[in-house]
């Protein structure tokens, strides 16, 4: 039998399963690109204004580290799309990872792959089908994004270059996910590995982009996110970069096929080892069980946070020394000097890290629903454990987990920064700034718990809320939205520490909102049927 036999049928199955999810994502991405571009177009009508804005951007090491460089200061397109080429590309990569995992490792884990694999389906067909679906999605995304950007008024060749840059990032991460899907026997772990790779390559790009001329700028070229930006849409349109991306995807896919050939269905590369015959004494509560289930994931997130925050904290101290010309230094001093700018950078960085920690909280709390649908909750709730106690177990891990992640991020960034500056007092203020992000992250966990109790089919509302809040924060100022609309986002209420004064009222309000959402969810959960299909 041909190893690819049945691929066509599996592609159709995948498209049937994703017929809602994929169009929604495409609309979100295309809408994000078009709205961001149209807002910037009106903001900088003259070339002089653009050059000024782009120069300011390129000078701020912090912004370059977070988003990348504006390669043509005169180009409207290059300036408009800078954030979407950086953080936007991260979302594009995450979607690629989710698409591939959903149709490969997740299918094996649930046992459905066994059902399908017993029919006339080749060994390579499931992976190939998932990659084809991802590639098709990104080809479509490239075309639709380009058309939308052209419609908004950006040049057509640059718009296609941008579309392809996004598609390249997506295809590269689909291939990375194809490899990680072979390594672990559960989808959650495989997604975690792929996201860890994403974090590493994002940091590599930041290191390369912020390097001095003559420094390790080549590091950018180790990163698929970096390739996306080296397309330089609207600033040279270097089409040949696509060859690098496709070459990488081809090699990674080949590696994935080689791994598929080596392992059994359902197994990872590492064999399952037997465990203890009796439970440890501590395993006697729902919370202990939840900790067992979350601990590996949480610890790997914490490792990622530690690495990311060390790099970003390290960059903070280089901000003051970047300006060579006396004029630039003069402007810099008038803007508030090194301390103010460094603080602003640290606050912005901690804000982004806070969003990522919220994402951890959302996925950890969504475990409640996963446990219910996998029928793991039923035997527990048939014991003397109340529904509230069980639901609180995963909620507690989600909330304490986000707290722990922010503490790690604060300590990592603070120590790296403090050590470079030789001033550990400032390190403490970074920790404080990191912990100030925690209440907003708890609100997101609260939204998931509320949905779980009141409308369990819609727990994914947690992700929707997270994306909506991020977009409100990023695009709200561009659209000059009313303050009360932007204030819907919990992130709008976080004091921008260090730098700004520490005000407790908004933090306490956020905690109260998180507690109320959680309480509403628990009340709903006490009243509803289990399981809700």
């Amino acid at each position, binding site marked *: 039998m041909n190893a690819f036999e049945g691929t066509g049928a599996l592609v159709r199955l995948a498209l049937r399963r994703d017929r809602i999810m994929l169009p929604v994502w495409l609309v979100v991405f295309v809408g994000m690109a078009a709205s961001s571009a149209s807002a910037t177009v009106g903001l900088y009508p003259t070339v002089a204004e653009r050059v000024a804005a782009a120069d300011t951007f390129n000078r701020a090491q912090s912004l370059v580290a977070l988003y990348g460089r504006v390669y043509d200061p005169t180009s409207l397109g290059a300036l408009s799309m800078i954030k979407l080429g950086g953080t936007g590309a991260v979302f594009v990569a995450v979607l690629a990872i989710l698409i591939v995992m959903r149709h490969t490792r997740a299918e094996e884990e649930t046992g459905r792959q066994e059902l399908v694999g017993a029919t006339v389906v080749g060994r390579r067909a499931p992976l190939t089908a998932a990659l084809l679906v991802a590639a098709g999605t990104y080809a479509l995304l490239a075309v639709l994004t380009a058309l939308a950007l052209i419609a908004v008024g950006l040049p057509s060749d640059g718009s296609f270059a941008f579309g392809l840059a996004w598609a390249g990032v997506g295809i590269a991460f689909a291939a990375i996910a194809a490899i990680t899907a072979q390594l672990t026997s559960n989808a959650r772990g495989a997604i975690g590995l792929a996201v860890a790779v994403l974090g590493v390559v994002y940091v590599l790009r930041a290191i390369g982009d912020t390097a001095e001329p003559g420094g390790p700028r080549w590091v950018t070229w180790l990163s698929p996110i970096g390739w996306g930006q080296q397309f330089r849409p609207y600033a040279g349109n270097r089409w040949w970069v696509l060859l690098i991306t496709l070459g990488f995807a081809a090699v990674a896919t080949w590696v994935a096929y080689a791994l598929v050939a080596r392992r059994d269905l359902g197994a990872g590369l590492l064999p399952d080892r037997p465990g*203890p015959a009796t439970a440890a004494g501590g395993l006697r509560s*729902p919370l202990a069980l939840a900790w067992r289930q979350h601990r590996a994931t949480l610890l790997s997130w914490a490792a990622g946070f530690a690495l990311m925050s060390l790099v970003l904290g390290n960059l903070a101290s280089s901000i003051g020394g970047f300006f060579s010309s006396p004029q630039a230094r003069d402007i810099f001093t008038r803007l508030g000097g090194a301390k103010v700018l460094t603080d602003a950078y640290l606050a912005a960085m901690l804000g982004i890290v806070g969003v990522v920690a919220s994402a951890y909280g959302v996925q950890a709390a969504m475990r409640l629903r996963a446990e219910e649908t996998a*029928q793991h909750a*039923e035997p527990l709730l*048939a014991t*003397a454990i*109340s529904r509230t106690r069980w639901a609180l177990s995963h909620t507690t891990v989600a909330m304490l987990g986000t707290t722990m992640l922010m503490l790690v991020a604060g300590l990592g960034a603070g120590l790296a920064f403090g050590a470079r500056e030789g001033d550990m007092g400032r390190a403490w203020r970074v920790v404080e700034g990191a912990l100030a992000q925690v209440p907003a992250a708890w609100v997101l966990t609260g939204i998931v718990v509320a949905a779980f109790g009141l409308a369990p089919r819609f727990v994914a509302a947690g992700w929707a809320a997270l994306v909506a809040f991020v977009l409100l924060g990023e695009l709200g100022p561009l659209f000059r939205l009313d303050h009360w609309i932007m204030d819907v986002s919990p992130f709008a209420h976080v004091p921008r520490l260090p730098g700004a004064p520490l005000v407790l009222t908004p933090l306490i309000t956020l905690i109260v909102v998180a507690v109320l959402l959680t309480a509403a969810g628990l009340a709903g959960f006490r009243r509803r049927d289990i399981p809700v299909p």
Partner: protein
Amino acid sequence: MTEAIRTDALVKTFGRTRALDGLDLSVRQGEVHGFLGPNGAGKTTTIRILLGLLHADSGTARLLDGDPWSEATTLHRRLAYVPGEVTLWPNLTGGEVIDLLGRLRGGVDQRRRADLLERFALDPKLKGRAYSKGNRQKVALIAALASDVELLLLDEPTAGLDPLMEEEFRQVIREEQRRDGRTVLLSSHILAEVEALCDRVTIIREGRAVETGSLADLRHLTRTSIHAELAAPPNGLADLPGVHDLDVEGTRVRCEVDTERLDGLLRRLTAIGVRSLVSQPPTLEELFLRHYGDQLPKRQRTEAMSG
């Protein structure tokens, strides 16, 4: 005798599906009660209501003299449950799951746990994802049976077990029966298992109880089949009340007789002289088919139409 479980006119709907349509169920304390019905008849829904996982739309349910919904947590200390479909946490070993569930219920009897592990030949060191369906089932069974409770709710507990293990399961349940006060609700569609274990049976169909009683009661309503070799060719058997499908070949007689008319037939046969006699009591299968038999032609019809 008091009742361990009682439901009256229980109704539960899921959207347009009426899963339970006025179910009456009564399980006496200390008995093994068979809960029979084909797939989708409402057995699991009933058990989930008894566990307080689902809220009934109307009707009442009582469990161990308590309200299964509002007193769920306290009642659960006194019962153990084996779900119809056992899924285990992939990264916990079978032994850990047994201990965890037992502790959450209030305690594990270590001697009994070790005994059951041996009897069911389960390796407690494997991770959840490594167990086969039958072994997952054993984990749930041992977790339930190792705890000292008054009531066992077993939802198709032998699904996936091999015949040896099925026999072991029956043995364990019979032992449970001898320990006083333990009540078992055994949902199943395996008739031999129910026949072997249960004192009383409730047959459920489309969300209603269509028959309830002891096996002896129920048997009374059906026919016994008789094979006899007589001393001389009989006559007049066909005139006897309650005799059906009579087939006489010389001195050999085969027939079915309404169980309540068995006495009359035997008297007539012994009057002629009996050389050999095989009397077969009605199986539960026949009982079952009587209530579900009419579904067969319907299904065949729809198959014919769709084919």
